[in-house]
């Protein structure tokens, strides 16, 4: 286990390094000067130079990257004339547009994506896995055909379409729910939930369909395995075979995929955020891209990457926990 963690940490760092370098290079090539934006209207050459210096965009790319890496480990000071701004480690950079440390901007928006993801996850797991199991166990019947159809329909609906249609139906026509607006859970849990219901649903529906498909095929595959036949040959009741023997095998890959999906979503659910007007990481990134706010782009991307890499490691651990045949090394 220790060995696994060590290897994983090393590879995580490597992955993040490669990625940050790629993103850095990519965006350095963009036209447009972020300093102009940061400087605002009425900013001439001298003032621009000061701003450029503060942002560090007057340095060659390599130096900028080096400063960034050092900032991650040791923090970083931004020279702003009278008072220098300190960005504590891990410093993901300093937003051109907002004059804020990127990490703070990310953590401010993270609750949105965490709320979105976790709630959606519960729904898609319950609906998706339930549907998948049901259609696997009712194989060949009308139930299965119906569920397969629904699943396909679910998978074929782009996420923003679902969001739009849900809002059309529930907020505009029926008026049962408020137009979603993010409320922190600490403020009012009930409103938090009421506002998130639709985003959850639209985010969950497509995943539910995918998970239903996966669960179904995984379950069918497991049910076709020899040890299930053994269970039957030894007189185990069908319910026990399914619950005690097939389920664990069938759900192991589902659970590990779940970890990865959740990891990916925590880094921002751009379309859902856009449709519902939530200010999460995805929107932050889109906005930053539009404003050439390089540190935010790099920061959010790395942050998302960090989640994904961690999620992969978690998936591996889950896999090992679920499946005694796997040893972590």
């Amino acid at each position, binding site marked *: 286990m220790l060995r696994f963690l060590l290897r994983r940490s090393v590879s995580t760092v490597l992955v993040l390094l490669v990625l940050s370098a790629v993103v850095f290079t990519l965006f350095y090539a963009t036209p447009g000067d972020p300093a102009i934006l940061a400087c605002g209207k*009425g*900013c001439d050459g001298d003032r621009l130079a000061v701003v450029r210096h503060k942002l560090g965009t007057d340095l060659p790319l390599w130096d900028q990257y080096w400063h960034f890496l050092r900032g991650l480990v040791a923090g970083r000071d931004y020279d702003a004339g009278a008072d220098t701004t300190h960005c504590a480690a891990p410093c993901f950079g300093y937003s051109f547009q907002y004059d804020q440390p990127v990490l703070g901007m990310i953590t401010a928006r993270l609750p949105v994506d965490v709320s979105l993801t976790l709630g959606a996850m519960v729904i898609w797991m319950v609906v998706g896995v339930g549907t998948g199991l049901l259609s696997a166990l009712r194989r060949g019947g009308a139930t299965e055909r119906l569920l397969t159809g629904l699943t396909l329909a679910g998978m074929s609906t782009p996420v923003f379409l679902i969001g739009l249609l849900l809002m059309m139906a529930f907020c505009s026509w029926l*008026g049962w729910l408020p137009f979603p607006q993010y409320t922190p859970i600490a403020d009012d849990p009930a409103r938090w939930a009421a506002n998130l219901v639709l985003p959850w649903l639209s985010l969950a529906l497509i995943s539910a369909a995918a998970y239903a498909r996966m669960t179904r095929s995984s379950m069918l595959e497991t049910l076709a395995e020899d040890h299930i036949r053994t269970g039957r040959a030894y007189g185990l009741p069908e319910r026990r075979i399914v619950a005690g023997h097939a389920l664990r095998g069938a759900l192991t890959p589902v659970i590990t995929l779940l970890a990865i999906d959740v990891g990916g979503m925590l880094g921002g659910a751009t379309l859902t955020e856009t449709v519902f007007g939530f200010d999460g990481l995805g929107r932050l990134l889109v906005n930053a891209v539009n404003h050439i706010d390089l540190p935010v782009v790099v920061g959010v991307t790395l942050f998302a990457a960090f989640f994904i890499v961690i999620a992969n490691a978690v998936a591996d651990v889950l896999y090992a926990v679920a499946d005694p045949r796997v040893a972590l090394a």
Partner: protein
Amino acid sequence: MRKSRALYAAAGTALLSSLAVACGSGGGAGGSGHKAFDPKDYRGGTLTVLNHNDQGHFDPARLYTSGGGKIPTLVFRTLTTRDHTTGGPEGAKPVPDLATDTGTPSDGARTWTYHLKDGLTYEDGTPIKAQDVKYGIERSFAPELPGGAPYLRDWLVGGEDYQGPYKGGELDSIVVPDDRTIVFHLRKPEGDFPYLATATQFAPVPKAKDTGVNYEKHPVSSGPYKVVSNDQGRTIVLARNPHWSQKNDDQRLAGPDRIVVQSGLDQSVINQRLAASSGADARAVTTDTNIDASVLAKLNGPQGLKDRVATGFFGETWYLAFNTKAKPFDNQKVREAISYAVDRRSVVNAVGGTAVAKPATTFLPDQKAFGYTPYDYFPGGASGDPAKARKVLAEAGYPNGLTITLDHTTSAGDGNGPEVATAVQEALKKAGITVRLHASESNDYAEKTQKPATEPGLFLQSWGADWPSGGPFLAPVFDGRQILKGGGNYNASQLDDPKVNAEIDAINKLTDPEAAAARWGRLDAELGKRALTVPLYHPVYKRLFGKDVTNTYVSQWNGLYDLSRISVK
């Protein structure tokens, strides 16, 4: 001189909208709330502001506002302010705020003197001093705190080289003889100084509380509200400032106990929420999102939305800008042909229809304060006159049509966005002009269009004045001395006509606004003949507000209802 002129511009229209800045001027119809006004009935409660754009920086040195802004004016009091108390034409005039009057000019309007009112205090009860006003202005010169309007650097003696209080010591052209007197020394006569003194840079900042770039997290309030929290300009929560007294502030009413500004919302979501007006949204307004088609269609419906729309006019013109240094736009006939061909109806439709835009044939906004003088030298009717355009084009030497490129931004729904560009493209097609579209991301666009070296031949542009006067409207666009090679140029046509320049100087010296307005109008009409721009439309502001919001009359200064006087049930 040249360099200081450079301060005029930079950051294009995209920035204007993205930072929720209003370069403003007033005029137009005054709307009003649907209930009789009695502030005593409407104290308390929480007002929510639902906005699309982030508030951005909340440092008085970095805000670029018109007449003190909408939210900033709740926290920052300035020497003068726009007239908050009326929805009529008087609202386009500056009134005293911290100062006892709108300023005493001397030395031919080169020196302006102000006296502070009695008993002014900050949110912590400490008194406001003239030195703090001076310090606040000095801060705005610091390169670390960029973003404010360029006029101070341009007007104050020594302004162009001053580096702010952190590095540059004090600015000698602002003199504080005592705690309640402040004197400004200008390089040239500026009759408009009282207009400028409405900007947040004229708000007092106590030096002891200045935390540099972090000051915006908790700026010290001199107004009716103080900042409870400011989440990077996304969510700002304001609460009543107990040390503010209505006794020495006749401009603000401060009805609600709390004001919550929530930004980053989708524009359609804002409209949907305000239309539904349920829960807390009943006590909500927006300061930056126009109604869209979904609201328009329901306007006369049973929900009574009609009574919940405030209509205002902001002195702004969207137009097609020609670079007369670029072929074929150096040919006036070509410019005229395009002027004839443009279909203003489809342009207006592209930005939301007649409810939110008025077709424009003049460069100056159609408001009295600007000196509006109607003209239409190249009449194309509602939807253009392609036949006439073809004829003029043939005269110009292009009997077989012409292929040109139109630059626009990628920002959907904006006046310089792809929808308007396609509308222009379609209209010119009928006149035999093939238009290729070239889109840029809005910041690139601003950078590119504002530098003569990279300026495209034809592009979509807008201009809004910082206060309701013809000067700041025409000078940056047509004054030949304001062609800025290094960037930030708004004189897109690159017109440099000594006669025009001289006329601008002459009008600037006038101290009578009425007389000045008339001459600005005449100048505009004169410039119009040269087809240097094709004015497309003037925007109309139509904003929805929640059903429990009252007293929503519209300021003539910036076309918006005034948060400082709004009350909620």
